[in-house]
């Protein structure tokens, strides 16, 4: 919330709140943007924090098994976009659907009413999230962090949950630390556990919110390697990445979308987006990254 407050204050100061005209979305050639049977659908979704409009009208479809990366400068609304799918933020207007079913409303006696907790829990079971700050439970061991939700939420047999967790922790190369507490781990190790914890819930959609942004530079690689492997192996799992790691995005994404000032400005296949940006905004955004890398 702090950063959102800051954005609001800055916005008020500079009075950038003027009427926007929705820009034409640039879709690179050969990009699949609509699906017969989309897993996720945003229809004209808007989100305000107080007076600040973070998202001004998002239309987006995500397919089954798709690996999608969202890029854009800080404050462009990319994190908000996925937090709404995890039900951590509620859109101000617009429609969001998962597997054709509305996320924020439900049918009751033939009427459309706001979603209740039971509906949200049902929808949430299809979504998982890995956070920038890991958000592991500090009072539980690595193993307990990974098994508590399968056991308590999914009702899995504890032995079965433990077995699956150990297998999963092997994949993120953390199986030698199952009895450690989060405070005894490095940032990179914590994030790998957090990835394991999220994947173990077998969500249809896994959201990854700047998962390497809080890490020391030397730990970024180990986390991206693990993510790369998981993205390759989990063909069925839809993954939506918010990231500044463009090389990583190039390697694993089926599609990249560029968000600018609350709109999706440009989208396409990774090579095309990163090598041949059409809009000035995206060109400027990418050249800033190249400059930084040369530093």
């Amino acid at each position, binding site marked *: 919330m702090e950063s959102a407050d800051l954005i609001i204050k800055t916005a008020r100061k500079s009075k950038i709140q003027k009427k926007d005209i929705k820009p034409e979305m640039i879709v690179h050639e050969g990009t699949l943007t609509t699906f017969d049977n989309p897993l996720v659908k945003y229809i004209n979704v808007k989100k305000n924090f107080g007076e600040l409009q973070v998202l001004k009208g998002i239309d987006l479809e995500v397919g089954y098994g798709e690996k999608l990366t969202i890029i854009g400068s800080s404050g462009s609304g990319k994190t908000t976009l996925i937090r709404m799918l995890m039900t951590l933020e509620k859109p101000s207007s617009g429609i969001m659907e998962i597997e054709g079913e509305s996320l924020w409303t439900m049918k009751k006696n033939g009427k459309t009413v706001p979603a209740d907790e039971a509906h949200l*829990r049902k929808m949430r079971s299809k979504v998982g999230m890995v*956070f920038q700050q890991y958000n592991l439970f500090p*009072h539980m061991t690595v193993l307990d962090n990974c098994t508590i*939700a399968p056991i308590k*939420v999914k009702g899995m047999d504890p032995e079965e949950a433990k077995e699956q967790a150990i297998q999963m922790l092997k994949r993120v190369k953390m199986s030698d630390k199952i009895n450690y507490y989060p405070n005894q781990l490095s940032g990179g190790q914590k994030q790998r556990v957090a990835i394991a914890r999220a994947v173990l819930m077998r969500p249809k959609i896994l959201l990854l919110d700047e998962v390497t942004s809080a890490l020391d530079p030397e730990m970024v690689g180990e986390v991206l390697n693990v993510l790369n492997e998981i993205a390759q192996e989990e063909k069925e799992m839809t993954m939506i990445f918010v990231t500044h790691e463009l090389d990583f995005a190039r390697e694993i994404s089926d599609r990249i979308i560029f968000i600018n000032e609350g709109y999706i400005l440009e989208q396409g296949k990774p090579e095309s987006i990163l090598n041949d940006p059409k809009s000035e905004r995206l060109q400027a955004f990418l050249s800033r990254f190249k400059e930084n890398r040369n530093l």
Partner: protein
Amino acid sequence: MIKIDKILNILLRLIDASKVTISLTIVAALLASVIAFISGILLLNRHKIIRFLVRTYVEIFRGTSLLVQLYWIYFVLPFFSVELPKFTAGVVAIALNYGAYSAEIVRAGFLSVPKEQIEAAKALNFTPSQKMRYIIFPQAIRIMLPGLGNQMIELIKGTALVSLIGLEDLTYSGVIMRTNDIADTFIIFILILVIYYAISSIFASGFKLLEKRANVGRA
């Protein structure tokens, strides 16, 4: 020279009286905890009117003297046809008073759990009650325990006030024994101090154990 058997005799009588102090402590502490947890959680309720009512209770019982509250419950309430036995009056007054103090500790403890932890629990699709039980409470109690432990010791010492409504606790019997033989004053009150200290130490070490358990996994 004070004779050993006389000291022993005083000590045994005081220990006998401290049974009242200990049982008063335990019953009042349990009730105070229940009150503290309910009030602490209600202080975070989203309904303003509920917060206001609980806040009023907390402010009144924190802002006035425990002794006066005890007198109210024992001497004033009978005028409104509420007559409580001494022990019950003591329990109620102490529990309401320390419950109000501790409500703030409970509230602060729940507030100390980072919102990211709650988001993580949501992302794993815990039900609201699972979220409370497995994620919020274990982290909040760790923050609350040192404060609650302090309140516990305060409460033990606070029980001495019940002697003023004539409940025969440790302090009361000391005062009575002193009137029998004024020469024993020194030895009686030394022993009373030691016994209070011993009782507090036992409860304090209990809290230390709990704190140690709640701190598992923390540096």
